[in-house]
């Protein structure tokens, strides 16, 4: 167990360093940060002084080390486009993205799992077929198109929900939340639905196929033969055993939600990190891009680590397998 954890931790650190390196290379070698900071008029002395002040004359591994240290402390430099500290910009945008993502993940789970269980238990009912057809369409529909269609129907035609922005937000310390106002909640509906649909269909299909698999096993047949109630068999035995892959995929899908949040935020002009990133890409705002890269990399590494460890805790079979496969 300890060897496994240590191995995973080491791997995470390696990945994080690789991401940090790309991010650093981007930051340091694309465009000349000194020229950008100095503006139009400067003398040669000023230029060289700034180079020295910023430590850009030092060998590259020293610079990289400094970059990592300051990134760990939350220092990402200053945005070229908005002339404000990147850390501050991201701190402002983070709540919007997290609230949206959490809402979407919650929706996907609370709707997707029951739908999956239902379609797994009642394979041949018309409702199951209907769900499955819908889910196939859902997988083929690009996120941005779902957003546009929802806007067209609910904002343009019916005019019941806002099509862009977060509505009114309330400040709770440094966290700005849209959960406490009616307009904030209304603004959340369309983006959250858009963002959750893909994950929802995925979870539903996953739970369904796992249920089908488990229901075929001998211990389910045995449980039925013992005369247990259907409910006990379906939920106590079957659903429980489908949970391992569901946990993994759901965990990994949090990453997917962050990725697709970029698209959703662009469609709905939701003032989160994804929109900030796209605007930075379009304006070659390198410090923001570098910071976003690091942050998303960090999210992913942490999520994967947690999922891996959870997996290990939830499924005892894995421990035996790993032992047999000599720690591979």
């Amino acid at each position, binding site marked *: 167990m300890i060897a496994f954890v240590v191995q995973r931790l080491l791997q995470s650190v390696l990945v994080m360093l690789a991401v940090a390196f790309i991010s650093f290379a981007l930051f340091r070698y694309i465009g000349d940060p000194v020229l950008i900071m100095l503006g139009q008029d400067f003398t040669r002395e000023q230029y060289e002084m700034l180079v020295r002040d910023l430590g850009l004359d030092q060998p590259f591994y020293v610079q990289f080390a400094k970059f990592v240290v300051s990134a760990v402390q939350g220092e990402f430099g200053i945005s070229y486009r908005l002339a404000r500290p990147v850390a501050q910009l991201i701190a402002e945008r983070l709540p919007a993205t997290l609230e949206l993502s959490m809402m979407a993940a919650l929706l996907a789970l609370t709707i997707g799992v029951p739908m999956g269980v239902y379609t797994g238990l009642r394979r041949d009912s018309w409702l199951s077929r209907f769900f499955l057809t819908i889910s196939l369409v859902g997988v083929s529909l690009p996120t941005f198109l779902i957003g546009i269609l929802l806007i067209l129907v609910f904002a343009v035609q019916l005019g019941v929900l806002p099509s862009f922005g977060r509505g009114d937000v309330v400040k709770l310390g440094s966290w700005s939340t849209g959960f406490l106002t009616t307009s904030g909640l209304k603004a959340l509906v369309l983006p959250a639905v858009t963002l959750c649909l893909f994950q929802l269909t995925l979870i539903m299909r996953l739970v369904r196929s796992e249920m089908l698999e488990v229901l075929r096993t001998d211990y389910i047949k045995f449980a039925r033969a013992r005369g247990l109630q259907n409910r006990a068999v379906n939920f106590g035995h079957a659903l429980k055993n489908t949970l391992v892959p569901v946990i993994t995929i759901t965990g990994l899908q949090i990453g997917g939600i962050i990725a697709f949040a*970029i698209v959703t935020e*662009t469609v709905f002009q939701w003032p989160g990190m994804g929109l900030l*990133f*796209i605007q930075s890409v379009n304006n070659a705002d390198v410090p923001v891009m570098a910071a976003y890269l690091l942050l998303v990399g960090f999210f992913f590494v942490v999520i994967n680590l947690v999922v891996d460890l959870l997996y290990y805790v939830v499924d005892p079979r894995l421990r035996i397998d790993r032992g047999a496969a000599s720690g591979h």
Partner: protein
Amino acid sequence: MLDSDVFHSFRRNPVVVVSAVVTTVFVLAALLAPWITPYHPYDLASLDLNDAFTPPAWTEDGSRRFLLGTDDQGRDVLSTIVFGARVSLLVGFCAVLFAMTVGITLGLVSGYVGGAVESVIMRVADVQLTFPGILIALLIDGLARTALPRDLHSEIALYVVIFAIGIANWPQFARTVRGSTLVEKSKEYVQAARVIGLHPGLIMLRHVLPNVMGPVLVIATLSLGFAILAEATLSFLGVGVPPTRPSLGTLIRVGNDFLFSGEWWMTIFPGAALIVLVLAVNLLGDWLRDALNPKLR
């Protein structure tokens, strides 16, 4: 591989037949675009701004000259869709081909050679698989956009997108090919080839590769759907193909600006075309996976 069993399951399944027909129609239309579209939408001489914002032919203000209406520049929407599908399919096919080439090569090598090479390649693939493909494509594309000089970038933007989407996709191929290669490696024909002293590269290419192509074909079809969607998404975000060669995603992005003023046809028709295309490709991929998988029969 394409034996009568597979053909039989194809003919028995009407949904699959329809998907195949739809895909074929799209591919043919894309290939023949300049000859079959009613107008050439990017020929400036044939454009008339007076035609701009004509709604579809069956609505009140529609004109019989433009079946699906026109856009803000007076281009025929039907023609732009066919030309857009051309770009979408081109990028999709090339990206999948690229991913296939990289994935198959690395998969073959790591399966056949093994050892440290294998661990490194597979570790990288594992790590990359934990990031969603669309995010990888977006990051590569974004980095290239910032790193390359502006005029150079707009020239090669198409290749950058193909590269970005292709890179996002290679691990699946590599993993599958490696798995099958491990199985094939221990079979007698490979050992025989080795005994008569063939070069390892030759063995991989001539003997192992043909026998691992079945699953590769399935993944290729499924990734084609992903690649088309990824391209559309990038283009919708404004970081995809250059605006001089609009794909379906670009058309949707442009149309989106006019959604609120009521010109819905500029968004809805390209969107519908995209959905139908991707749905057809995905259905084909799903069917192919099931048909080639004896476990599910």
